């Protein structure tokens, strides 16, 4: 797990003088596609988002989406081998969290993200679905989702709308 911040200031402890607004921030996370590495990366991404000014609800939503995307890469693109790299670039501006996720595993079927419909749920407990929720959650929680297969790489681009940043000190 390596991290690279293009804006070194965003990786430091929050500056109280800047706490009245959410600035822009960008950070790149590179990890191996294994369960333990994904868990560790999610903790670091969550901490980064919190420092960048997202509230607890937004951080939670982002963590769910990023977990599902990376789990899918580990399980399907890299076929659960526990090897292969994932690179995640998170960008925050005043309105959006944008994530670009790149891997070199197998392409998505039909070269597009699955529709992600909620699995059918009858009333019978033995027939309840135990899987198939991943893409549903990704689609339910993101506002934009684009996929490209390029030079042996999968590029997934997604966006989460953020609430307007709280302004503690009105600047008028």
């Amino acid at each position: 797990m390596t991290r690279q911040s293009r804006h070194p200031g965003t990786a430091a402890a929050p500056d109280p003088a800047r706490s009245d607004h959410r600035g822009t921030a960008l950070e790149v996370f590179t990890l191996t596609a294994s369960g333990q590495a994904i868990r560790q990366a999610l903790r670091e991404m969550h901490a980064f988002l919190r420092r960048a000014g997202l509230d607890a609800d937004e951080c939670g939503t982002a963590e769910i989406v990023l977990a599902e995307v990376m789990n899918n890469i580990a399980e399907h693109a890299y076929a659960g081998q526990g090897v292969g790299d994932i690179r995640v670039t998170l960008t925050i501006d005043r309105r959006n969290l944008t994530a670009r996720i790149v891997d070199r595993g197998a392409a998505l079927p039909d070269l597009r993200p699955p529709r992600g419909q909620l699995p059918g749920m009858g009333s019978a407990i033995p027939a309840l679905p135990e899987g198939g929720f991943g893409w549903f959650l990704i689609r339910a929680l993101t506002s934009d989702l684009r996929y490209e297969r390029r030079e042996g790489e999968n590029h997934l681009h997604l966006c989460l709308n953020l609430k307007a940043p709280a302004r503690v000190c009105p600047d008028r």
Partner: protein
Amino acid sequence: MNLESSQHGTHQLITVNADRIDAAMAIAFKDAMRAETADSGDYVILDLGQVKFIDSSGLGAIVASLKQMGPGRRLDLACLTPDVAKVFRLTRMDTIFGIHASLEGLAPRQAG
């Protein structure tokens, strides 16, 4: 997978002593739940109060825990934290499980 189990009158309470149920531990969770519920009564409550994060694999493992208990038995959930509640609500699994906001009123007071 650290689960803690105790009997409270009509129900067995299983507490998850972990802050996440994710893809890395979903199978271990399901196996531990199978062991804990193998000889228990018909009514089990799963206390998720310490679990701050769940992904779709963790959700699937909880559904599997209900299914492997077999017919005529009930698995309720208690103390869902906000991000866990969000996953259950979005997937509508909150309509399948009985959900308790807290453990208050669930356990009969022990006499003496």
